[in-house]
């Protein structure tokens, strides 16, 4: 008899069991498939449409931002060494008038050899090359061609407005190529050598560092050799300040994943490890649950196994048959997991703050051979893990006894129960560990959100502003920003409004090194560029001197406001007013005021030294944020601000306006994600544990119905029966609670980098977890225990 056919028949016969098993595995597998898909896309999937991706390496000096100028790219290209060539690119948002709609899309400004070096093929027309330096030509993505141009085959040669200027479409990139960061795919590519007005003055200078650079190693060259060959060049292509504090030119493989650069990749690896640990634990709970079910089912099938043995079946054949059944379940669970993983990814995006959902991030899973192969491999592993022991135990049947007496025909019955108990304890322990982790993360998140900052963002709404279009002059752009700010100030209910490029706790903060040219003191400091009214809007007290005023606008090279920490670092015990600071550029800035510390790298960090410049030359490229304070409810204001921005920038189709707290949440993404993932995982674990306890206890009671009947016939009360049944379940949970709490606290102690003012052994969290788990366990045990207490002794004894 074909094992597979039998397995199908068994599953059809026990539809309830099969459905529960597939659901349990499906949930566990979905979490793993979703995480695998995301991690694969972020770190390991070869860049779509790129030839020989493993030869590509990104060049960077970690934590020094955009590293290369066109000059330095030329130096690299002249002395290629172990590399075939180098290419540069920069990512930005651009206003496109395409397919009868104006929209802001992600673009890459690329060097002439960008496509050639990547080995990308055109889908239609041709791609940009070295001869296209200054021509207004654009290559569009396959996705943009599909969605905005209705897959028109004659698109090549058509005009497209880029930042208000006419560009000619020379080609469509191959399907699958979405630029160097495919999780946020690029829609169009332009030359990085475009003249004014397509690129601003700043980008025209060949010495301006604005490009990311990657190289293609010669065939057969090892990464270490390629790195070594770059060392002699670093003094020619980098500034001395970039090499301070052990900085050096790094080469990191960038042909796979979506995060070019070592620093980004290491962060994502850490997150991936965390996510995988959590979802593997969920799958472990699901496996333990299924193994419990299979063990119980094995007991019910001992007569069938005994008959088969009596008819001559060798044990290995029966083990194989049982394993095939588990494999079938597991494969169906895997299939369910593939389907559920789509929802898993959608749930994962809920962990992202609302603001980040407004970005064009493509987290959709691609169901190719990598994901399907992973699911298949995981299904096989799960089948072995879940099925082997139950199959081994299930065929340990005393054939003679099993065929004579159905209730006592099982040899090692005591051990079976012990194994099932062990499985329950391990499920409880893992779930409790997840609950402790999730609980501690939630506590930490709550501590962060409830802490008192040195500024006040209640009743403030924020929106991110657009970058300056190439077609817009600096003066025009400044006028648009000024008018937007003035209009915002006149909105009903608005008390103050301001612009700022790096408001406190909002993502994108950057630091620089500053010094006093007179006394030589220097300090690392966060930098902010703001309009007058910024401190008032965020209620940052000016403790010395004055705030920026309208007369400072346009004189931004001259004046600076520092915070107390920076003042203490540069001029300890002295009056900072009138002093000068020097950073990056040649100009010195005179201190006109000192404000309270409100500079944060993140919400979990203490305040840092910082200084503020008045908006002027430094923000002429646009960007930054509009912050508006109201004395009233922020809800109506959000809509009004959105309308203002839409009027000022028509390409900003859906400006995202939110309470300041939502933007602060972006900075808490690691904590939020950890809390969300752990919370979801522990909820699944809790549900599985409850189901597992219910199943085991129900089975235990079914097995003992006759014994319970006899006991009741001999005078045992319902209370006694119920207590003994509850005790059985709760004692297992208690053991699991102790083990799981210890494991959870140990695990949480390794999350100290994301914990804020919260102990891994937080008593309130541990107590909450105990109450939650005990409550769930009591509920799961109470139902079968009540059934046991309702056993009619006469019926129970007659049925035997």
């Amino acid at each position, binding site marked *: 008899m074909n094992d597979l056919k039998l397995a199908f028949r068994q599953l059809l016969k026990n539809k309830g069991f099969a459905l529960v098993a597939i659901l349990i595995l499906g949930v566990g597998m979905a979490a793993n498939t979703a995480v695998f898909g995301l991690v694969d896309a972020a770190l390991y999937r070869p860049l779509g449409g790129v030839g020989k991706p493993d030869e590509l390496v990104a060049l960077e000096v970690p934590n020094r931002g955009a590293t290369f100028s066109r000059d330095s790219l030329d130096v690299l290209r002249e002395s290629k060494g172990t590399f075939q060539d180098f290419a540069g690119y920069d990512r930005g948002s651009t206003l496109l008038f395409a397919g009868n709609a104006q929209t802001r899309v992600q673009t890459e400004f690329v060097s002439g050899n960008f496509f050639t070096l990547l080995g990308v093929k055109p889908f239609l027309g041709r791609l940009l090359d070295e001869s296209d330096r200054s021509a207004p030509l654009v290559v569009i993505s396959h996705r943009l061609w599909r969605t905005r141009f209705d897959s028109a085959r004659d698109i090549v040669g058509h005009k497209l407005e880029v930042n208000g200027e006419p560009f000619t479409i020379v080609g469509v990139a191959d399907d699958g190529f979405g630029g160097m960061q495919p999780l946020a795919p690029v829609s169009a590519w332009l030359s990085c050598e475009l003249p004014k007005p397509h690129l601003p003055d700043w980008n025209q200078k060949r010495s301006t560092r604005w490009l990311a650079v990657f190289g293609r190693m010669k065939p057969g060259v090892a990464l270490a050799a390629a790195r070594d060959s770059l060392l002699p060049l670093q003094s020619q292509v980098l500034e001395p300040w970039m090499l301070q504090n052990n900085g050096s030119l790094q080469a990191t493989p960038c042909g796979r994943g979506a995060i070019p650069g070592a620093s980004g990749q290491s962060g994502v690896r850490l997150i991936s490890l965390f996510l995988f640990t959590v979802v593997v634990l969920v799958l472990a709970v699901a496996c333990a649950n299924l193994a419990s079910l299979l063990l119980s089912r094995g007991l019910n099938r001992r007569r069938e196994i005994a008959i*088969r043995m009596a*008819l001559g079946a060798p044990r290995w054949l029966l083990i194989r048959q049982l394993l095939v059944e588990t494999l079938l379940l597991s494969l169906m669970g895997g299939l369910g997991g593939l389907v559920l993983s789509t929802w898993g990814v959608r749930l994962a995006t809920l962990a992202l703050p609302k603001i980040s959902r407004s970005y064009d991030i493509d987290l959709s899973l691609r169901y190719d051979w990598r994901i399907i192969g992973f699911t298949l491999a995981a299904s096989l592993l799960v089948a072995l893990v879940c099925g082997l022991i139950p199959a081994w135990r299930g065929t340990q049947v005393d054939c003679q006894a099993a065929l004579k007496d159905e209730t006592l025909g099982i040899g090692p019955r005591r051990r079976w129960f012990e194994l099932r108990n062990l499985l329950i304890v391990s499920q409880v322990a893992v779930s409790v560990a997840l609950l402790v982790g999730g609980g501690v993360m939630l506590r930490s998140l709550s501590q962060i959100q409830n802490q008192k900052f040195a500024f006040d963002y209640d009743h403030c709404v924020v929106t991110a502003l657009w970058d300056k279009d190439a077609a817009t002059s600096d003066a025009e752009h400044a006028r648009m920003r000024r008018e937007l700010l003035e209009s915002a100030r006149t909105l009903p209910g608005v008390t103050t409004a301001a612009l700022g490029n790096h408001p406190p706790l909002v993502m994108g903060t950057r630091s620089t090194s500053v010094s006093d040219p007179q006394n030589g003191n220097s300090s690392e400091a966060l930098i902010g560029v703001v309009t007058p009214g910024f401190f008032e809007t965020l209620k940052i007290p000016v403790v010395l001197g004055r705030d920026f005023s309208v007369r400072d606008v346009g004189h931004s090279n001259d004046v600076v406001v520092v915070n107390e920490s920076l003042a203490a670092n540069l001029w300890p015990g002295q009056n900072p007013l009138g002093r000068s600071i020097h950073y990056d550029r040649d100009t010195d800035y005179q201190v006109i005021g000192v404000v309270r510390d409100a500079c944060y790298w993140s919400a979990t960090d203490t305040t840092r030294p910082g200084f503020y410049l008045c908006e002027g030359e430094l923000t002429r490229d646009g960007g930054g944020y509009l912050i508006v304070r109201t004395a009233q409810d922020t809800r109506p204001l959000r809509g009004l601000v959105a309308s203002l921005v839409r009027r000022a920038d028509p390409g900003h189709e859906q400006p995202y306006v939110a309470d300041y707290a939502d933007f602060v949440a972006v900075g808490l993404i690691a904590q939020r994600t950890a809390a969300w993932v752990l919370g979801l995982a522990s909820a699944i674990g809790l549900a599985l544990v409850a189901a597992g306890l219910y199943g085991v206890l129900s089975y235990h009671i079914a097995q003992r119905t006759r014994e319970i009947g006899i006991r009741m016939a001999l005078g045992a009360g319902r209370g006694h029966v119920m207590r003994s049944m509850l005790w059985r379940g709760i004692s297992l949970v208690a053991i699991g609670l102790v083990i799981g709490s210890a494991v959870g606290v140990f695990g949480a102690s390794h999350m100290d980098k994301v914990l804020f003012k919260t102990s891994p052994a937080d008593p309130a969290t541990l107590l909450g977890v105990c109450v939650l788990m005990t409550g769930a366990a009591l509920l799961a045990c109470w139902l079968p225990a009540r059934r046991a207490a309702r056993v009619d002794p006469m019926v129970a004894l007659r049925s035997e």
Partner: protein
Amino acid sequence: MIKLLNIEKSFPTRPSPTYVLRQITLDLEEGDFVTIMGPSGAGKSTLLSLLGLYDHTWEGEYWLHGQPVHSMNGKERAALNKKHVGFVFQQFHLLEDLTVGENLDIPLSYRDVRKSERQALVADTLDRFGIVAKKDLFPNQLSGGQQQLVAVARAVIAKPSLLLADEPTGNLHSDQGRAIMELFKRLNDEGTTIVQVSHSETNAAYGNRIIRLRDGWLEK
């Protein structure tokens, strides 16, 4: 065909072991139709299991077709069982998930018989037992007598030389029981050695020999 010498079987209990079979010495010839009788707890079914090679925790000597079962390991005993033994149970023990045809096929599949040969043997057996029409029915669609008929067919399909039956009519009414016993008689006439356990003198009358057990001892 079967030779038992001083067979003893016991369970370890305190303070002393409990004996189920005591010094059983017995010879069975090919073509015998033997009935083991005795009160409950006499050791009848234990002796039957021992003869069927399902039990190996005993002492003494057991020779089957001249081969020393007592010195065989589990694998060798299993091979011998497959080759020579068919078993009929009181509770039929048909596999409920399989049709009548598949139930008949199972012992052959465990004996590595080729599929085409199995199909032919199953068809022959269905015909021989008059159950062709039941081929695609499941056990729960059959009466008790029909189920036992299928169980007997399943026990003999692999052409065992020894057919063991543990109270084969215990769960049947008298007409069905009689039909099964007549079937046994016919099989015995065709050359199959049969050993059955029964409480019924009527059933025992179908055989040519009765062995009586009491408290594990063979009654002379």
